[in-house]
């Protein structure tokens, strides 16, 4: 695995001067994933925070070839780019190996782009799809997505006098991707660069479709101080709210925290969960803990069965 010193000699895929919020995690995901590639990369991004803020004409923060098409079609768009590349390679017009990486937020991946992603994975294109998952539609103002956790306050499922934020458990997209039987699926966080770049390196070493789901705290939508982006992600890992694991050819490998902390440790630092701590909402927190435990145990069982 490449050391930070070694990574620092590679091309930074992004320049400064983009318009993401101070402390935004999305560019950190991009940098850690793409710098893991020794080979040239070509990027497609779904519409979203990352895309609008990095490519305001005539300013592009991408130093690598970049294409944006629309919101729900990063998977399909990359399918076309990759097919073109395979054609050029077949005809001897391109020789160098290229890693194709598509980025989508959770809205563009879990929800509106799921069909396009599923199709691209099923067809076996040689590409890595990375979901920079901040658990809501942040670009349009913190609306709930299929990735939003139960209880979180969003603008389309707000906490109010009667309802306490999102009423449904989040969709487990990573397991949906595992069910595609693609060679490599992983969950990671920002805040653990060595794990994330190792996973990206692993993904780049495998031909075929790969998927990595990266939890990326959003200071605007989650509500915390901008310097805590990485720390908060690590809290999600330590509480097993966001398990960090990989599935290579169907075999599970889980990174287990030294000590599994209670979910409260994760929830309490965020404005989006603040209402859960009001008197009367104790059961909601207990429910969340129970569901986190259930999913964690299920995952452990999957690892155990091999």
């Amino acid at each position, binding site marked *: 695995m490449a050391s930070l010193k070694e990574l620092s000699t590679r091309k930074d895929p992004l320049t400064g001067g983009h*318009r993401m919020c*101070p402390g*935004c995690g999305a560019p950190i995901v991009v940098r850690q994933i793409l710098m893991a590639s020794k080979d040239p990369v070509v990027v497609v991004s779904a519409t979203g*925070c990352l895309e*609008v*803020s990095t490519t*305001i004409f005539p300013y592009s923060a991408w130093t690598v070839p970049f294409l944006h098409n629309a919101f729900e079609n990063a998977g399909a768009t990359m399918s076309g780019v990759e097919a073109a590349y395979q054609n050029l390679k077949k005809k001897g017009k391109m020789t160098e190996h290229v890693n194709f990486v598509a980025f989508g937020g959770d809205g563009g991946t879990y929800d509106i782009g799921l069909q396009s992603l599923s199709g691209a994975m099923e067809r076996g294109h040689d590409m890595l799809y990375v979901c920079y998952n901040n658990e809501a539609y942040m670009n349009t103002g913190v609306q709930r997505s299929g990735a939003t956790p139960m209880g979180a306050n969003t603008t389309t499922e707000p906490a109010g006098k009667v309802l306490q934020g999102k009423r449904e458990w989040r969709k487990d997209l990573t397991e949906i991707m595992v069910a595609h039987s693609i060679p490599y699926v992983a969950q990671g966080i920002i805040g653990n660069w060595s794990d994330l770049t190792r996973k990206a390196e692993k993904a780049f070493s495998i031909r075929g479709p790969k998927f990595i789901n990266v939890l990326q705290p959003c200071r*605007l939508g989650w509500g915390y101080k901008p310097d805590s982006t990485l720390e908060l992600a690590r809290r999600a890992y330590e509480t097993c709210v966001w398990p960090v694991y990989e599935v290579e050819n169907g075999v599970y490998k889980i990174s287990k925290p030294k000590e599994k902390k209670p979910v409260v440790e994760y929830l309490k630092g965020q404005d989006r969960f603040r209402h859960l701590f009001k008197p009367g909402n104790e059961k909601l927190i207990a429910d969340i803990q129970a569901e986190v435990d259930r999913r964690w145990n299920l995952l452990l069982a999957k690892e155990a069965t091999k």
Partner: protein
Amino acid sequence: MDSTVEIRWHGRGGQGAKTAALLLGEAALSLGKNIQAFPEYGPERMGAPVASFNRISSEPITIHCSITNPSIVIVLDPTLMDSVDVTAGLPDNGVIIVNTKLCPADVRKQLKLKGGKVFTVDASGISKELIGREIPNTPMMGALVKATGLFDIESMLKDTEAKLKKKFAAKPEIVQGNVDAIRRAYKEVIGE
């Protein structure tokens, strides 16, 4: 259009420039004025320079183009003066009100401003002290009323209090803090 007052608010994403314009618009409406309040929409994020606008008139307002020659400019963040041309389009008899600890003469020098009237107030300090957080937008409304005489401060406070009470039903302390901050800024704003 002579009866129309046009205002431009400069702030940073997350500082409440848009909210300030909306609050001012609503206050002016309840004082019997015709109003518009609109933000500049872009992909800018927290911390990025943003602007928002008001039109206030005793006549009906039908115009829907952007404001290029505001008679009043309010700067919520003094650091914006380094990078944004906050005085752009300001006429010679215009008014600029800046949230800063500096005095008007310092601001005039920094902006290399020849005409107009400069006012300053430490809205950040006031909000920190009275609201508990740095949200300079509401105190700046008090400074605005003092500097321009747009409306009667007590009438405006009454209306804003009612609005805030609705918005922050769960946090009454914030409402009082905001009202006090507006009143304090009204008193403390310095002109030339």
